[in-house]
């Protein structure tokens, strides 16, 4: 399940909802990763485009990986503008086992940064500027060059 929010994610409500929904399902470990917009480089905030069809397929592949390890993933992301100190990203792993949870959240978040079809823009002086220098080419890029 991927939850897409217009603008900032309501973090407290989302964490509460996820915790409550899995609380009785016998997962011993719950690890959310919450990403919050930092005040840096004189930005006013960040803005995001998401291509949902491929994001959902990417996520479902990871859900299969998690399932093979007895674990379960959730994710939320913003589209549009997210201002300073608001949050744009949460992913979470639920697992019976501590080691599985700690390893999976790391692998999942790192692959998310590399391959999830989401584009980031800095909001500066009211403009939306593609954060190209912080972006990474998806695996397989350059096929048509």
């Amino acid at each position, binding site marked *: 399940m991927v939850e897409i929010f217009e603008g900032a994610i309501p973090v407290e409500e989302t964490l509460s909802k996820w915790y409550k929904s899995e609380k009785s399902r016998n997962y011993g470990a719950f690890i959310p990763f919450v990403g919050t917009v930092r005040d840096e480089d004189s930005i006013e905030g960040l803005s*995001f485009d998401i291509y949902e069809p*491929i994001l959902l397929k990417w996520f479902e592949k990871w859900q299969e990986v998690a399932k093979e390890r007895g674990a379960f993933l959730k994710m939320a992301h913003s589209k549009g503008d997210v201002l300073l100190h608001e949050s744009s990203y949460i992913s979470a792993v639920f697992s019976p086992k501590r080691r599985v949870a700690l390893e999976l959240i790391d692998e999942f978040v790192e692959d998310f*940064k590399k391959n999830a079809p989401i584009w980031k*823009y800095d909001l500066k002086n009211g403009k939306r500027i593609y954060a190209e220098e912080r*972006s990474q*080419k998806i695996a*397989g890029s350059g*096929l048509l060059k």
Partner: protein
Amino acid sequence: MIKVEFLGPIGKENLEVEVSTLSELGEILSKDDEISEWLSKCAIAVNDEIVFNKDRELQSGDKISLLPPVCGG
């Protein structure tokens, strides 16, 4: 007819073209000054699956997406 869409920051309207392989599409796009600079940076999806083979044959109705460098989170 193949539909081509340009995602994220590329900022170009969808195209419809008559091609039968990705290679042919690459030749057409490399002649478009707005797009050619993106080709080396973009991954390619056919019907929302990222592909790795340029010789792949296309069928009428296929949707091709160009995915420029990403940065979620």
